[in-house]
């Protein structure tokens, strides 16, 4: 192939493949994409050439094995612009919960031969290992955000990331606050927008699958959630869930778990 079109790759690390599925579910835009880029590697969709040099790499998944570390270095070296997509790639994902647990004990309990498993002691975001040019959050990622970023890059413009809170997205969409009207324990005020306010639009509390907003006042929100009847452990679990590897949420959750005597001084 001697095409002059920019080259795009989609790589998978430790993940459920949901973000790749989100891309596959794009419909028309996905069919339109090959008109403007050559997709050199996207194993879930067919093309399989993981070591090709590309202009843009989309990376799904977290780093949780020694092999992941080597591969991500290679991907970085081969890519002019690297975009991480989804909660696993941007924060370590749900599997980062293992970082806070007794990994050895769990492996012994789950696997017949834990000694055959080669894994790192933690699941971490891509940006902890290589330079990342743009992070697109969410579990799964919002595929429209991916397309918008690609359209910006094709036009030679630096893509912008979503920086508002989920509350702003609810208000823009005319979604009524579930916390104020129903006392739902919502994570919206500390969560990054981008999902389209999906859960609150169905009357449910946000559980922060898009991870921390830029400003996280966990103390004030925790106090409010506790006043709604949640124990501090229940509040901790809301911070330590899909994006427990994101430092603001990890720290918030661990603070809530610390015995009260220590925090009181």
């Amino acid at each position, binding site marked *: 192939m001697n095409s002059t079109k920019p080259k795009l790759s989609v790589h998978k690390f430790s993940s459920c493949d949901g973000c790749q599925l989100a891309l596959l579910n794009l419909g028309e835009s996905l069919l339109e994409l090959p008109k403007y880029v050559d997709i050199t590697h996207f194993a879930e969709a067919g093309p399989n050439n993981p070591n090709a040099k590309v202009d843009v790499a989309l990376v799904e998944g977290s780093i949780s094995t020694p092999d992941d570390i080597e591969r991500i270095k290679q991907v970085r070296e081969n890519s002019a612009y690297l975009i991480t997509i989804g909660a696993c790639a941007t924060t370590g994902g749900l599997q980062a919960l293992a970082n806070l647990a007794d990994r050895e004990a769990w492996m012994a309990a789950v696997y017949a031969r834990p000694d055959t498993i080669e894994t790192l002691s933690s699941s971490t975001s891509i940006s902890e290992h290589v330079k990342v040019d743009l992070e697109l959050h969410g579990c799964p990622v919002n595929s429209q955000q991916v397309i918008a970023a*690609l359209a910006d890059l*094709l036009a030679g413009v630096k893509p912008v990331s979503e920086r508002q809170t989920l*509350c702003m997205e609810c208000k823009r969409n005319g979604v009524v606050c579930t916390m104020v009207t129903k006392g739902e324990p919502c994570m919206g005020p500390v969560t990054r927008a981008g999902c389209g306010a999906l859960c609150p639009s169905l009357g449910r509390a946000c559980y922060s699958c898009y991870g921390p907003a830029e400003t996280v006042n966990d103390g*004030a929100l925790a106090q409010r959630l506790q006043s709604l009847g949640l124990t501090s452990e229940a509040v901790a679990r809301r911070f330590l869930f899909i994006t427990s590897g994101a430092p603001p949420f990890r720290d918030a959750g661990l603070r809530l778990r610390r015995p009260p005597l220590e925090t009181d001084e």
Partner: protein
Amino acid sequence: MPTQHIAPRRPGFMERERLQDLLDALRLLGYRTLGPVVDEDTIQWREVDAIDALPAGVQARQGAGEYRLEVQPDDRLFAWNHGPQAIKPLLFSAEERLWRERLMVDGQIEIKQTLPEVEPTAIFGVRACDLAALALQDRHFLSPQHPDPHYKIRREALFLIGIDCAFSAATCFCTSTGDGPSLGEGFDIGMAELDNGYLFWGGSAKGSEIIDRLSLKPATEAQLNNMIQGTDRAAAQQHRFLPGETELKQLYEKLNHEHWDEIGERCLSCGNCTAVCPTCFCYSTGYQRTLDGRSAEMKRQWDSCFSPTHSSMGHFMVRGETTLRYRQWLTHKLAGWQEQFGRSGCVGCGRCITWCPVGIDLTQAVAALLDGGLADA
């Protein structure tokens, strides 16, 4: 005080059962009619063609960070106070396209403004505070030098039926800002809900014409008294207040007050207060491009002085800390607006108190900041 607006009213009386007549008259004139409807546990503006869709006996109990609807055995359709939004979203759209750009074959760029399609819209039951807020938004978006075409086209299609408040929510403080609870100006038809019916009066030539056509009987002395009782009761129910505008200007003398930090510890910087505020008007813009690189749309959406983007300048954020963002919001709203628009930007609706997830109360904040006079800093 409520009585000051009463003199020019000369209202006519309508039995509760006849309210449909007004709705029918408006629809006959080609208006889409919006009214208060219970939806998602709140009172919201929805299209209404029959009066029985209105919230009979529904009251909205509001507190700091709390909103609950309660139903009483009562025929009143406007006993609720207000919903999560004034009419701001109907004029200043939360998200909209401003224009389209296209790269032509000859290399020229074609830019086409995209205006919304609007139909004449009548809104039924707009409160005095929300009309005061609308007047402020008009001053901002319809400035003679730079009128906003998107806002303007929607605004010109609007017909407003205002209503006196006969009840206040615990979060209301419009008596102290001078914006309610009785209607001042800015409506086409004025309306008051009595114990057993309604009073109507014209507020514009168009409105008066419609009222005349309904051939209502002039209100009796007892009915007028009933109307005044309603607004007096609403005024008496208010326990929160803001000081006068001269005192509010003193907030500028309090920029180093320690209370800002106390609020900064509670504030989530989520932006809810600004999104429900009927006078807040900040927005951000950005391009949405097509993959072929040949066309783009300029979009705008509500922004907030609590968003990190709001004070970002290249690599520098002017107000990184929440304390500074809250200080910016409060001093601008209550003092800065006086210089910009000739009055404070607060109309006393209390939505920022109700819809704050952690219940921060601006009236308490102002009281704490101004307590002890000028000699702090």
